């Protein structure tokens, strides 16, 4: 299941959904709005997305992770709009019979999401200024890698 939402993420409900007797291991990852980044203070984050494409990319990540690690459950929720300090911008829950698959899939999902899903973060700093964050990485997909160096 993938979801984009402007509401707070209910990670308890996601864990409950994944915690079933078929799964020996349940992993939850939360990306949380951090107060301090490289010495600067954040007031809040705002997330924008290319909505239809982000949903398709997230669904593709879910599908790929389920196949690669034989997951029993794979839930990815990304929040959009304002995300106050201490609240989650992203939640990933994976469940699998054994724990190593859960750790590997969870880390791959967040790493890949950050590389390929068209969602953007705007830092609103405590001093009143703001910046769109556009990290120095190529968007990760096969065609880009070969043609857009």
């Amino acid at each position, binding site marked *: 299941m993938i979801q984009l939402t402007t509401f707070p993420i209910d990670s308890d409900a996601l864990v409950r959904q994944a915690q079933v007797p078929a799964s020996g291991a349940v992993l939850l990852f939360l990306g949380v709005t951090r107060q301090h980044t490289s010495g600067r203070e954040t007031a809040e984050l705002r997330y924008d997305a290319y909505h239809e494409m*982000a949903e398709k990319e997230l669904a593709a990540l879910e599908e790929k992770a389920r196949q690669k690690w034989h997951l029993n459950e794979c839930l990815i929720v990304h929040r959009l709009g304002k995300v106050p300090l201490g609240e989650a911008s992203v939640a990933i829950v994976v469940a699998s019979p054994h724990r190593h698959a859960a750790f590997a899939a969870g880390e791959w999902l*967040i790493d890949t999401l950050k590389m*390929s899903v068209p*969602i953007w*973060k705007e830092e609103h700093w405590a001093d009143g200024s703001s910046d769109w964050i556009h990290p120095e*990485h190529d*968007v990760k997909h096969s065609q880009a890698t070969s043609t857009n160096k």
Partner: protein
Amino acid sequence: MRVKVKMFAAARDATGASEVVVELPELARVRDLRIALESEYPQLAPLLSRAMFAINTHYADEDTPVPLAGEIACIPPVSGG
């Protein structure tokens, strides 16, 4: 041909629009779109050099033909998560 290009994040701020229209020659490819955008919106240049394009919600490469009808989007480096 005239095509609409969706703009997001800093690209939207730089152009002041969530969608811009550019004039392209027939049979244009993504590389031509990039050049046309840069000449129309010089302020986009730093971001364009690092942006990708998507056509109908799929990442395109430089050789992908720009369709006459279809959803075209400029994708600055993403920062979700």
